[in-house]
């Protein structure tokens, strides 16, 4: 025990009630990213080292045909060309990802609500091929779906109205929005989205990824500057690169870094000619899904106003999930939605549909590739969005929307507090419904996924390349559809698996453990 304290760094816990920007926040902004314990980091590197050695051994055997090769290779005729599969990513995929890949791509055979059914799969050749035993694992608690408000359901008003619309309009649209594919439903949905967000107009697309990657090039081009957060999503990075503007990256959620970059940009201008930039666009996300952190929106808006830059806010995970009225991170901080220049979001996570929207002007209708070339959204999906949005706004006459937003906030705070008390390292803001729990070691990634499934809980585990190589994690997504019983059962199972796999790395214990013994608190909720 003593040696751990000798080896560990102190943790990093930040409360920002009165930062240098004074009274911008109407509530405490509590985020924590505990440092990796030194011993755990060393053991993780050692584990990866051992697996790399075995990876080289297997590659050697495959090359000399001692062992049969199951994975993609170049053809015989192409052996003298530039090699395709020799970089680290492919090495990693062949030798590590394949061994634990039964934790991913599990087929679901029911609606992915709070509970779901999975097809049981077995592999006899170490995950190269899978076969289905024919059994269905029933009532698996779903902690992995982005189902924040619980609208992924096959019963209820949303599903009924979507079914009616399918009867009336069919499923396929067979055209783009500019040609014949613009149904009255699309117009209705866009007006509703604009009203929901409190802006003048909005535009919707069939795919959230395409919304980002196709619209950023339409807004900025050469001679413009994009200031993008370190941990932005691939779609934002792709859109920024496609646009051809200069990209500068600031440290994650770090306002001093952003201010320094803004000042440098305005003082020095473009790289060689020193002319002023045509436009400066700050690109941030509402909730970062791998870290669970929330953007410091009031400070970003203050900086944007001071230095005359534009702000692009990607609310993929935060729309519907944050804020007292469910209007996203703008509502959560209580800032004016007109201060954010471009708000983008997706319908997949909170509304149970598919697609993305962006709030801007008529310019995009003719200049965005996604608007001009992509097929329009399918009518039942549009109807699902309309019904769920009306439900959240309370316009369908019930209070179900408000209830769900409140339930989600309560569930989030409860789940995070309990996990912290148990001693796991949890990243992110205390109000964010995305909860990453650190696993670190490569073998524990596969072991955690399998042990949780054995106990009927489905989780998502993430490793390299979505996260830095030693910081692999399990990511829980809390939903308003989870009842307190389900959360309690999930928590007791997570604690049990955490003890089995030794995952409780955290250095700090909360005060209540002094008042009540640790064991009694944990085991009184088990009901089996």
């Amino acid at each position, binding site marked *: *025990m003593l040696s751990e304290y000798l080896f560990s760094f102190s943790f990093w816990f930040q409360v920002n009630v009165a930062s240098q920007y004074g009274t911008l926040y109407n509530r405490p902004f509590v985020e924590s990213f505990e440092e990796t314990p030194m011993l755990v980091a060393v053991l993780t590197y*050692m584990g990866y080292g051992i697996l790399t050695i*075995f990876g080289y051994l297997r590659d050697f055997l495959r090359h000399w045909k001692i062992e049969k090769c199951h994975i993609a290779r170049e053809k015989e005729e192409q052996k003298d060309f530039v090699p395709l599969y020799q970089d680290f990513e492919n090495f990693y995929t062949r030798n590590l990802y394949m*061994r*634990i890949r039964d934790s991913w791509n599990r087929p679901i055979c029911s609606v992915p609500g709070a509970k779901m059914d999975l097809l049981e799969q077995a592999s006899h050749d170490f995950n190269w091929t899978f076969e289905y035993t024919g059994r269905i694992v029933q009532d698996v608690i779903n902690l992995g779906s982005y189902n924040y408000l619980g609208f992924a359901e096959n019963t209820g008003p949303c599903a009924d109205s979507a079914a009616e619309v399918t009867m009336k309009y069919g499923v396929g649209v067979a055209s783009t929005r500019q040609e014949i594919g613009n149904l009255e439903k699309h117009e209705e949905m866009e007006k509703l989205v604009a009203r929901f967000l409190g802006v003048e107009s909005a535009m919707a697309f069939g795919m959230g990824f395409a919304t980002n990657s196709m619209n950023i090039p339409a807004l900025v081009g050469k001679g413009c500057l994009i200031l993008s957060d370190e941990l932005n999503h691939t779609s934002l990075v792709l859109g920024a690169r496609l646009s051809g503007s200069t990209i500068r990256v600031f440290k994650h959620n770090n306002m001093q870094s952003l201010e320094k970059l803004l000042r440098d940009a305005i003082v020095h201008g473009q790289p060689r000619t020193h002319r002023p930039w045509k436009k400066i666009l700050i690109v941030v996300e509402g909730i970062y899904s791998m870290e669970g952190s929330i953007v410091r929106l009031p400070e970003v808006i203050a900086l944007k106003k001071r230095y005359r830059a534009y702000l692009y806010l990607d609310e993929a995970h935060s729309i519907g999930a944050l804020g007292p009225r469910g209007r996203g991170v703008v509502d959560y901080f209580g800032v004016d939605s007109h201060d954010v220049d471009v708000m983008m979001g997706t319908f997949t996570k909170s509304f149970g549909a598919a697609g993305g929207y962006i709030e801007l002007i008529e310019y995009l209708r003719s200049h965005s590739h996604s608007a001009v070339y992509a097929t329009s959204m399918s009518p039942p999906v549009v109807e699902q969005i309309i019904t769920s949005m009306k439900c959240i706004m309370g316009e369908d006459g019930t209070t179900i929307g408000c209830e769900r937003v409140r339930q989600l906030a309560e569930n989030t705070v409860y789940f995070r507090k309990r996990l912290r008390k148990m001693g796991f390292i949890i990243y992110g803001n205390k109000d964010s419904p995305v909860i990453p729990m650190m696993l670190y070691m490569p*073998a524990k990634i596969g*072991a955690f996924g399998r042990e949780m499934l054995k106990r009927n809980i489905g989780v998502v585990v993430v490793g390299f390349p979505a996260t830095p190589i030693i910081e692999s994690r399990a990511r829980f997504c809390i939903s308003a559809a989870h009842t307190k019983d389900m959360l309690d059962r999930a928590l007791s199972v997570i604690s049990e698996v955490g*003890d*089995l796999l*030794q995952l409780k790395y955290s250095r700090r214990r909360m005060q209540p453990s002094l008042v009540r013994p640790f064991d009694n608190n944990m085991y009184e909720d088990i009901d089996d």
Partner: protein
Amino acid sequence: MICASACKMNFKNLREYLAWLYYQYLLITGIYVLEPWEKSIFNSILFSAIAMVIYTSYVFVPIHVRLALEFFSGLFGGQPESTMALMN
């Protein structure tokens, strides 16, 4: 850390405890994900390395310790002996 959580796990007998310790060894070194023949290779290499370390320490450590003690006692205790020898 291992002892604290082991107490919570309610092991019924020593065999279960040893199996859990072996499981922890598999997880920490990363061997858990490997195929059985790879596990055997790693275990045999590690076991033979540890066996060699134990054998070497058994054979050589007493000799080295004795030589070290002689060297240090020669430094401190040797002076009175030599002056006594000179006087005699």
